[in-house]
């Protein structure tokens, strides 16, 4: 679409109007502020971002009788369904150790990504009323979505820890590794949310494709199997799947949480390169996504 090109405010400004405006200290509206100013404004609106994320997190369950209980119940039910499907109905022998815990960690971590992706994509179009009524850096909306999903993740992690302990794992110091791992993953997810949010504004149809992309990644990211086991003879394909950012993050979390999987002979090997990949994906996606989003700042609200 032609309108993808970011506009600058000077479109069609007549010189006389501009001169008169300058004389009286009026500033031109619209367009996109420089990156530095934008970041500063975004920072000054951090309370709004946080409050908006928190309110949405609360509001989504407020009308239910169990209220915030669903924040815990939802992942529990999810774990039960996947547990039923993959360990009872589709059982097979070549399963990693402690398969229920393995599955729960994978599914919950993936849920964080898929939520950021699909809700982040809709963050601008579903808040169009707000965009058309209030002035604020539009990056607040995808960011608030990621924060909201991160709050949900916190609840899921608690459930996850309980389940992992119930399956016989004892908490150890390595569990703390999930904090940097999830932090890097959140950066990655925010980047994806920025990219998806802008693309969706240009082309609404993308929301139709997101479930399929998500589903594809669900099967490709080793949620219910270990990629290294399954694709060890596939050469380049196996390597690509191993490098898949979601597999990297999920492997880090599993390595941290599940004692029985640590080490190459048990399934998951974590090296400095894995952390470098996780950091690289997070930082690069975040920066690229943010800049891509900012470049169209003046266009949001027109659709």
């Amino acid at each position, binding site marked *: 679409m032609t*309108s993808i090109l970011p*506009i600058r*405010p*000077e*479109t*069609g*400004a*007549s*010189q*006389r*109007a*501009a001169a*008169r*405006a300058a004389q*009286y*200290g*009026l*500033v*031109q*509206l*619209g*367009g996109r502020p420089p990156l530095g100013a934008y970041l500063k404004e975004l920072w000054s*609106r951090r*309370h*709004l971002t946080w*409050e*908006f994320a928190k*309110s*949405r997190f*609360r*509001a*989504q369950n*407020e*009308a239910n009788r169990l209220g915030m209980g669903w924040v815990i119940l939802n992942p529990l039910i999810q774990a039960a369904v996947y547990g039923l499907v993959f360990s009872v109905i589709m059982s097979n022998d070549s399963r990693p150790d402690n398969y229920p815990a393995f599955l729960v960690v994978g599914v919950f971590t993936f849920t964080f990504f898929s939520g950021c992706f699909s809700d982040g994509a809709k963050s601008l179009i579903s*808040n*169009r*009323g*707000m*965009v*058309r*009524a*209030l*002035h*604020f850096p539009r990056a607040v909306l995808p960011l608030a979505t990621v924060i909201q999903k991160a709050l949900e993740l916190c609840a899921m992690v608690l459930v996850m820890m309980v389940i992992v302990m119930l399956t016989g794992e004892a908490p150890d110091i390595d569990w703390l590794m999930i904090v940097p791992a999830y932090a890097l993953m959140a950066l990655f997810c925010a980047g994806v949310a920025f990219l998806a949010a802008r693309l969706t504004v240009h082309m*609404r149809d993308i929301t139709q494709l997101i479930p399929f992309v998500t589903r594809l990644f669900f099967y490709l990211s080793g949620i219910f199997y270990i990629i290294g086991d399954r694709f060890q003879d596939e050469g380049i394909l196996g390597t690509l799947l191993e490098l898949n950012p979601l597999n990297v993050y999920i492997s880090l979390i599993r390595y941290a949480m599940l004692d029985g999987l640590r080490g190459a002979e048990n399934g998951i090997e974590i090296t400095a390169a894995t952390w470098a990949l996780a950091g690289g994906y997070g930082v690069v996606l975040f920066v690229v996504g943010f800049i891509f989003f900012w470049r169209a700042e*003046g*266009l*949001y*609200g*027109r*659709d």
Partner: protein
Amino acid sequence: MTEQTPFPRGSVATGYNGEGVENAPGQDAPKPTLADPVGSAPAAWATEPEPEQPEPAPAPVKKAPAKKAAKKGVGPSGLKKIKTRVPAGPRERPTVIVDNLHITYKVWATGKAASGRNSEKKGLLARTPALRRAREVHAVRGISFTAYEGDAIGVVGTNGSGKSTLLQGVAGLVPPARGSIFSLGNPTLLGVGAALMNELSGERNVILGGLALGLSMEEVRAKYDSIVEFSGLEPEFLDLPMRTYSQGMAARLRFSIAASVSHQVLMIDEALSVGDRQFQQRSEARIRELRESAGTVFLVSHALPAITKTCNRVLWIHKGKLIMDGGVDEVIQAYTDSENGPE
């Protein structure tokens, strides 16, 4: 109260239909326009489009026949008089300069709605009915004016004439297709409702709304009591979710939040028609107050008495163009007399 609902989209969609399809009976012929306020205005009044502007869009209005107007005795000759008669504060400091503003929307529509009667009539490109095409809806077509400190400007026009879109455009919230807007600070649209959440309590919403208006956390806390007091809501309701509020109560809270900030430029879309009698008086008083504190207020309303009471100047918009810009009595009179008058 289009702007107040969380989904102003509806109002915009109405604009599309009115604008784009243009199948309303009797709307095909060009309307006799009273004058082109931009072209004939003194320099101090409006920003004139540069002659070398590549866009010739505003030109047709200029020389439109003023038969009807002449009949009513408000000919182009009388217009200059109208403008000078506008009772207002010192017209020294402009707060908003709108220069040849165009706003277009792209709508994806299928088949007949997209090809419509227009294309048949005008013999434009024949369209394949089944194909989906982007249709441009030209909601605001080359509007220019300058608002001054202390102005309270009413905006009138029929449904779908582009009033709400104009306001959103002038507020800098909908990007212009062409033209530009200069303003003293960011104009605030009284539409904080869009940021509020029905599931949350009134109290949380006051905080959320205040932050959304750009207040800091401390400022929100400092203003909290006065917002609640102005809204006149019973304290016990503040703990209840907003969805339990009556329409009037919710509207009062929204107005109170939005009006708590002293805006340099405030825009109100049909906001005064909500709330009970007592609250209406209070909000009118608040708008006068905002106006006196050297701000500029824009008010879109179909309730002409509200405009007469609050405003000193009126813009009459029809089909996205500025028909008339002048003092309240004259413009309202002409608007009421015209066949496009209030429904």
